[in-house]
């Protein structure tokens, strides 16, 4: 037993630089697998709706715009998104139509500003890429 056994450690830390960084001026690097905000590459989307079905937060919404021309609208409600990146895992196309970025400062003062929207024509799978995941239930 020794009185103030912690004291040498405390004194040593007087001469160390702080463990924190000066945040708004200095930023930490984001890890390689960071899950930021999901976004769509409309030219690759085959509208299989796998992302809409698997999203745990029901943040993805795909609707018909013009069934005759096979035009669709996708809305990602980023205010609901829990950033799990399951949509990226579920996406069957190669390269993936659903992607995730590495932005982390996405706060706004209004949740409606977080909505992202794409109107696009359904992509047709190229014959060589269609082998593993054949058109999985295209939208009626």
């Amino acid at each position, binding site marked *: *037993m*020794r*009185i*103030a*056994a*912690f004291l040498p*450690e*405390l004194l040593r830390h007087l001469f160390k630089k702080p*463990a924190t960084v000066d945040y708004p001026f200095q930023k930490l690097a984001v*890890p*390689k*697998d*960071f*899950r930021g905000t999901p976004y769509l590459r409309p030219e690759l989307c085959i509208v299989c709706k796998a992302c809409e*079905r*698997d*999203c*745990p*937060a029901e943040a993805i919404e795909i609707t018909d715009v013009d069934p005759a021309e096979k035009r669709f609208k996708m809305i990602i409600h980023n205010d609901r998104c*829990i*950033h*799990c*990146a*399951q949509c990226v*895992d*579920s996406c069957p196309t190669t390269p993936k139509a659903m992607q995730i970025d590495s932005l982390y400062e996405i706060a706004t003062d209004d949740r409606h500003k977080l909505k992202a929207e794409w109107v696009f024509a359904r992509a047709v799978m190229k014959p060589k890429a269609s082998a593993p995941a054949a058109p999985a239930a295209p939208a009626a």
Partner: protein
Amino acid sequence: MSFQIPIGPQHPALKEPISLRMTVEGEVITDADIRLGYNHRGLEKLAEERTWIQNIYLTERICGICSHSHATCYVQGVEKLMELTPPRRGLYIRYLVSELERVHSHLLWLGVAGHEAGFDSFFMYTWRDREIVMDLLEMISGNRVHYAINTLGGVRRDLDEGQKSKILEGVATLRKRSEYYFRIGATEPSFVARIAGVGMLSKERAIALCAVGPVLRASGVARDVRKEDPCAVYDELDFNIGTADSCDVLGRVVVRVKELLESYKMIEQMVKGLPDGDIVAKAPRKAKPGETVSRYEAPRGENIHYIQANGSDKPERLKVRAPTLANYPATVEMLRKGFIADIPLIFAAIDPCICCAERTVTLVSARSGEESVVRMSDLRRRALARSGNAPVKGNAVWPF
């Protein structure tokens, strides 16, 4: 003359809402009563309306500290139902994250214990060191708190050589720091005097009240799901169960520091012996009808998920028994004969996670207005007695 002191649902000593009612005589607590239900979220009902995949992220959000524990427990159970065998590499990465999470949870708890005992510099240093393991988890999975590394049939992120060497480096630093804390715990007289003899729970009572995790092991019972019912990779690893015989808060500190050192050992073994191959096997969308119980040793104790499948892509029932819930009866026992000033310390020593545990049923007797918190086993016994007496339904049809 005895008084009743209410603590909570909102109280500076409690981080989450729970109500403790102490009956005191002078400074000594003669009786304690715990009231739950301030944080009920309807999670189990919600799980019945989500698919197997969606529920991974839901169960992960049961708790913020042991998020991986709940997700792993759930995924283990669903894999059993789907008769799915994840590849070895996937399992190694999954349980590597488990052990890293245990390290972060125990370091956090050590800080909280130091804070409750009035040793705030200890709290700040353990939390600074916890950043090392948080950074490792962020590097492996991409995020700090909800790792989302589990998926049905394996994991979602792979490890490369650079990450492996960073993990080993981080663990070496952490081991040095933990050994230092162990030494501080043993030599700092004021800290030891504050926590020794507080919150006594004898071995017999700990077993009788079904305590779990470090609370049970601090009462001298070497019980650990990782050793007794080794799932997946734990039977290939060399580790010991950390126990203490002092039956008090000091013992719980010692057990957690010992577990830290065991976890470092396991992490090193897993990183060095990481097998090659795939990290994930393809999972079906539906599970066959059946039921399973999945057990997992979370940092706070044994975590149990009961999963029932009805053949569709959604579970019929998901029941979560979080370790904190199992420790409540023991907490009441620990609080008795203690002092009012020890309440935060004793309560913190079970590492309570209220939001995990909020799924009991409180029964209010209509005649006397008396409330009683009922355990699942009691409810089941009552249900069995009730169905035994009920008339046989001749025209009931199996719905599936």
